[in-house]
């Protein structure tokens, strides 16, 4: 277990704040019609991606969940979030060169793909794990998904394969209880995704997804197991999405508005608020530092918007050359 220094803790905190600020930026840009594609906010989910992705090495592999379209998983790893904004504005400075729509990719940092059709993440991650095992350099793969995603067959096929072959893959499930408009209590009889892992003899842990340190510690343990040849594990993070499934859509459960009380109750346990309170109590954060970090993140977001706006569109002449590798 790594001892987290003051600097480490501040890095986590700053990453959470930046993730939320950039999420807010994308939300506003979506409302203003400036994103040329859809957007699924990470509001409420920030601690999961940030906490888990903080654990991995630069040469590990990540398959990201669609919440925040890459923000929680990349900011904490030092990837510049302006490339997310630029991609969504369709600009050549985006992380996919402005041709992907919404897909997050970063070859240098092992983000080899992100969900379009949900479910592929599980099986592709098995492939990343297979490569990692063959490489013999102690790399691992983390596959992020939602609780809806595990209802696809690929989850079961992948976790079975990873378990049988002891592949170094960590499945991090962001369980917010919903899949688009549908509450999962009505589409699965299994309350905890962790129970599914057990069926495949994969160790699984349930953690509070609003508690970034709990996510960090659970991931640390799973990653260590994977790096040392112990095979896959699953971490189920109980979390919540504050906003509608994607921007501009109704926020319903089946066809009725989601409960305002439920949303408010989860917001009481907001992951940023909880962590901030803890860091203040532990004297890691001060009121001035909180203000400085927030201001810097705001300034960064303003600059990213301008950067993206000012960036050129891709040259369409490139497109035919993007189809086949030379």
């Amino acid at each position: 277990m790594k001892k987290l220094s003051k600097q480490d803790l501040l890095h986590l905190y700053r990453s959470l704040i930046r993730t939320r600020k950039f999420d807010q930026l994308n939300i506003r840009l979506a409302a203003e019609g400036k994103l040329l594609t859809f957007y699924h906010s990470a509001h409420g989910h920030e601690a999961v991606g940030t906490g888990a992705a903080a654990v991995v090495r630069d040469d590990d592999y990540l398959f990201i969940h669609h919440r925040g379209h890459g923000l929680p998983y990349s900011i904490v790893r030092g990837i510049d979030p302006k490339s997310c904004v630029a991609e969504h504005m369709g600009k050549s400075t985006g992380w996919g060169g402005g041709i992907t729509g919404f897909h997050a990719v970063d070859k240098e940092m092992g983000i080899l793909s992100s969900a379009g059709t949900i479910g592929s993440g599980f099986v592709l991650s098995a492939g990343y794990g297979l490569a990692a095992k063959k490489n013999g350099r102690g790399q691992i793969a983390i596959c992020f998904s939602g609780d809806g995603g595990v209802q696809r067959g690929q989850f079961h096929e992948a976790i079975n394969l990873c378990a049988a072959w002891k592949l170094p893959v960590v499945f991090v499930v962001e369980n917010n209880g919903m899949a688009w408009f549908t509450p999962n209590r009505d589409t699965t009889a299994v309350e905890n995704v962790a129970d599914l892992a057990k069926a495949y003899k994969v160790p699984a842990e349930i953690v509070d997804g609003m508690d970034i340190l709990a996510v960090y510690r659970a991931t640390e343990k799973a990653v260590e197991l994977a790096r040392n040849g112990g095979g896959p594990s699953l971490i189920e993070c109980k979390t919540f999405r504050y906003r509608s499934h994607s921007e501009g859509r109704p926020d319903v459960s089946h066809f009725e508005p989601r409960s305002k009380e439920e949303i408010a109750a989860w917001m009481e346990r907001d992951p940023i608020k909880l962590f901030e309170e803890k860091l203040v109590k532990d004297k890691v954060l001060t009121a001035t530092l909180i203000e400085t970090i927030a201001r810097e993140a705001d300034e960064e977001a303003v600059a990213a918007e301008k950067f993206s706006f000012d960036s050129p569109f891709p040259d369409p002449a490139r497109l035919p050359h993007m189809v086949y590798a030379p």
Partner: protein
Amino acid sequence: MKELMYWNAISEAIAEEMARDDKVFVIGENVQESPFLATKGLVQKFGSDRVMDAPLSELAIAGATVGAAMAGYRPVCDLTFADFIYCAADEVLMKAAQQYFIHNGEVGVPCVFMGVAGGGFGNGPEHSRIPAAMVMHNPGLKLVLPSNPYDAKGLMKAAIRDNNPVCFFFHKKCMPMKQEIPDEEYIIPLGKAEIKRAGTDVTVVATSYMVNLALEAAKQLEGKVSSEIIDPRTLVPLDIDTIIESVKKTNRVVIIDEDTECCGVAAEIAQQIIERAFDYLDAPVSRLCAANSPIAGAAMEKYVIPQLPQVIKAIETAAGL
């Protein structure tokens, strides 16, 4: 008469068929609220036993559709995005398409696989396809591509009543369309093309949303080119006779389709024209389709999927200008 939006026309068709036949039900992800609205309002009328919000499991949804259809029901399966047919490929392409054959013609698979298709939202390679040619390439499946609200309603009713699996891909860009819909019931039989505009210089066979671009192009070319716009409305069965008749009259033809060019819808229609009307052609059959590339996202989508200026150009070229 009343005005209906495109999606409303679809949901009204499903509602009428559900009221008429209690074997009809809707199954799919999020169909009760319906992200693309085509099944919105049905749960309030028919309850959640007949409008079923299913797990995020395309294979289970499509497979259950096939199974229930073989056992006597008429499910309408909503795949959300038509692209997700790839996620349900085994059950749609191998099972739905071939069970009638495997059962020696004794057990049919009467169902509908619906999905919102095509470009317009800039969502990139996995949410912008119109997988028409792939469906055509799998005998046993029918394929409907409604280009306006009126057709969408009449064709959906026919699709539900058909004794075969029918893919019904409605187009994102048709969403804002509104049209007068008669109060009386009507059905548009599968396999009947419609001449959307009569003309004498060139035959334009267009599919799905491209019909609307072709009509706009024809309007802009008025006085210069007299275009005859044919919407096959269903690609399986294909009303080739209507197309051939028109080609015999105009001696020129261009096919405009939003699916990928290679081995595409246009290639098939072109070949059938060549086989049946070669001697009538004054120029090679031409086509305008999506480029042989994944559908690019955001601002680059328009360089992959045909847009109005290319449609105009294609019609002019086909007309020999």
